[in-house]
């Protein structure tokens, strides 16, 4: 990490409600330009909502989000998102799904071809260019989703539980592949997950989001060495951090939020 210049992303006292349902309350965080910040929190607590606001897909009711100093009011071109359910267009083959964003920008054909081919190589999908999404496994579809985001060379990458709909083995494989890709070209990344292990493994910092409405309950710095190797998950530091985050999430809550949190978690589960 370089000594912090201006952060790439600033979320400043973000609040949001859907009708009567308060979802985010005064959430503040920053992401530096070469930093992965994990957002971890129970299902239904508002992680996707927060990420969508950063992406410009939802609007805040209070507070402000700035990317490179620019206020986010609509999706910005230097931001890419990877979706939980891949979000590939079933009528486009894999190559053309990955080329989608560049085509929208009317990038010259030759440059599209060069960049798309490179992205496909990077995520290990060579040979499947002509396959349609339904012919690819979930893991391969998310590789394509990742390539579609990376090919835009974004300054900020938003990941919404990208591996949670994928089987455990493939998930582990993809986690480390994503880390390798990031090592080669580190960018700012906001990595949303409900898995504590994944949050610690990926992040330089872990933001623990919890409560109803959700707020930042804890912020943990992850001082594990990069590149992160597989062996890191058995290191005492990793286990220790995982324990701390677990306690942040489920341990004795502080300042009388017991009741509201208990209710929040239950009602979120009921809504699913």
């Amino acid at each position, binding site marked *: 990490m370089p000594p912090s210049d201006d952060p790439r992303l600033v979320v400043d006292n973000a609040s949001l409600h859907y009708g009567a349902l308060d979802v985010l309350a005064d959430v503040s965080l920053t992401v530096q330009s070469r930093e992965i910040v994990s957002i971890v929190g129970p299902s239904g607590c508002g992680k996707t909502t927060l990420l*969508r606001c950063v*992406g*410009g*897909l939802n609007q805040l009711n209070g507070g402000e989000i700035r990317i490179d100093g620019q206020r986010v009011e609509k*999706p910005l*071109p230097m*931001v*890419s*998102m990877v*979706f939980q*359910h891949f*979000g590939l*267009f*079933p*009528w*486009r*083959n894999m190559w053309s799904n990955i080329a*989608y*964003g560049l085509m*929208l*920008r009317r990038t010259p054909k030759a440059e599209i071809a060069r960049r798309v081919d490179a992205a496909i190589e990077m995520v290990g999908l060579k040979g499947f260019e002509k*396959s*349609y999404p*339904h*012919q690819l496994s979930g893991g391969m579809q998310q590789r394509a989703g990742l390539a579609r985001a990376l090919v*835009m060379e974004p300054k900020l990458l938003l990941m919404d539980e990208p591996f949670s709909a994928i089987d455990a083995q493939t998930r582990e494989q993809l986690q480390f592949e994503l880390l390798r890709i990031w090592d080669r070209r580190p960018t700012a990344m906001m990595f949303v997950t409900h898995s504590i292990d994944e949050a610690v493994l990926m992040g330089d910092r872990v933001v623990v989001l919890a409560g109803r409405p959700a707020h930042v309950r804890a912020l943990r710095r992850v001082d594990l060495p990069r590149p992160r190797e597989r062996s890191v998950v058995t290191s005492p530091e990793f286990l220790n951090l995982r324990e701390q985050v677990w306690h942040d999430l489920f341990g004795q809550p502080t300042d009388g939020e017991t009741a509201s949190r208990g209710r929040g978690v239950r009602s979120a589960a009921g809504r699913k």
Partner: protein
Amino acid sequence: MTAVAAASASLSRRLARLRSVHAGPIRLACYATSLVLLFAAWQAFGDSFGVLFVPFTATVRALWAMLDRGPLLGALWVSGELYLVSLALSIVIGIAIGLALARFRLIAAAFEPYVFILYATPTISLVPFISVICGFGFWPKVLVSVLISIFPILIGVMEGARSIPNQHLDVAAMFGSSEGQLWRDVVVPYVTPHAMTGIKQSIALAMAGTLVGEFFLNPDGLAAVLLEGTTTLDSASVLAVTLFVAAIAVLLVSVGELIERRLLRWRHSAIG
């Protein structure tokens, strides 16, 4: 868990079998057999019934005579023009209105009730009004035929365009799609299968619509031939024209299916 997996495996196997019935020589053989049975039953029934319902062979003979030097080809020409014009209009107008009703809420609020009123009204009951207002020429007939054939397309497109998953719209927004690009890259490809389903039905309905239009407004074309056969109690020629129309309808629907399959290759898996 395993029981569920086994059940879903057997379900998918059964589904695969169901789908494979739609392909290849088995399907063709079933089709041929049913035709032969139908014609045989017709033959037997006609033989025992006498002049008012002639057997299959007599019908084919009558058909041959009418094609050879009779009025059938000339009539086909007249009706064919009406058919093609009304089908083309149904497709173009049906898609346009369907999209407009789906994507523009105010238009839907103003006009959607009329669509369903018209859909529920038997078109024949409108024929007197149409003739009073528009006369008995070519275009009133087109109007009758369009009113009969447009709804499957219109409603299919409308429901299709309304059901575009948010996930696709999010991806488009995130990559900075303009409204025009959204229509080109998402709305049109997503709606195409719905439109094709409607068009296939309309291909057959426009046939019926053409005959109804001709029947009730200044008969000419195939309807005139049919009407003449009816008034002279020439059941052989009535059945011959019916057979002829049915054959053309089957042919046209097959063409529609062929086009559909080419357009929607992304839906069919490489294996199945």
